[in-house]
């Protein structure tokens, strides 16, 4: 994963993305015990806000990756240095999650990981069964700033969903 992160950092350095943070299962694993997953989800903030909110072009990223030798795909994932990667344009809650992600190092390489409070909110919003399992793991195993979580849940109208999850 080290080489994958290095290449993603290059995307930022080359001005193809404004910022990014690791989310999804790998984001969760940063804070919990490890579990099986197939891919690396990266939430990205684009350099320019898309003019047409309904169409977001990611091809400059893929063009660049192809130029440096990464043109193999499996399903919706592009293989970057041996890791299937999905780029997810961040907006609203996920954009705020990227902006407030924790700066960390992976094997000496700088990167950013979404914090548990934002991960819980994003997973709650997605609401699939597999997301609920991850929320449970985060609540049991990670240090959660409950005040911070409450602020995010309030802001994005996720309070009711959270209460339903807790009472379930």
């Amino acid at each position: 994963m080290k080489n994958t992160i290095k290449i993603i950092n290059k995307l930022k350095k080359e001005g193809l993305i404004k910022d990014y943070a690791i989310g999804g299962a790998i984001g969760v694993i940063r804070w919990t015990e490890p579990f099986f997953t197939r891919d690396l989800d990266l939430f990205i903030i684009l350099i320019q806000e898309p003019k047409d909110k309904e169409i977001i072009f990611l091809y400059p990223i893929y063009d660049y990756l192809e130029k440096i030798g990464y043109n193999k795909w499996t399903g919706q994932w592009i293989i970057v240095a041996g890791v299937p990667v999905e780029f997810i344009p961040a907006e609203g809650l996920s954009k705020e999650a990227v902006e407030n992600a924790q700066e960390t190092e992976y094997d000496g390489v700088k990167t950013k990981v979404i914090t548990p409070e934002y991960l819980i909110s994003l997973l709650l919003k997605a609401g699939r069964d597999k997301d609920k399992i991850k929320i449970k793991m985060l609540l049991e195993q990670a240090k959660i700033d409950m005040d911070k979580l409450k602020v995010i849940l309030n802001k994005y109208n996720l309070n009711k969903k959270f209460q339903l999850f807790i009472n379930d």
Partner: protein
Amino acid sequence: MEDKNIKIVTKGGRFITLKKLYEEHQKSHKEQANLPFEEKIKILIDLQKIAYSWGRKKDVIIWGE
């Protein structure tokens, strides 16, 4: 007798209640949560290898290989 008070014999002839066993399981989950990120990814890659070979999930890509 309450289920959780059932005693079981573990490694080295140690007696332990079911309740204590659950608590130790919970503790080990938390300990794994505190491993360095790099260690966790190594474990993930091992899980991917298991899924590929033992679990016969041939569409799983083993990271970095």
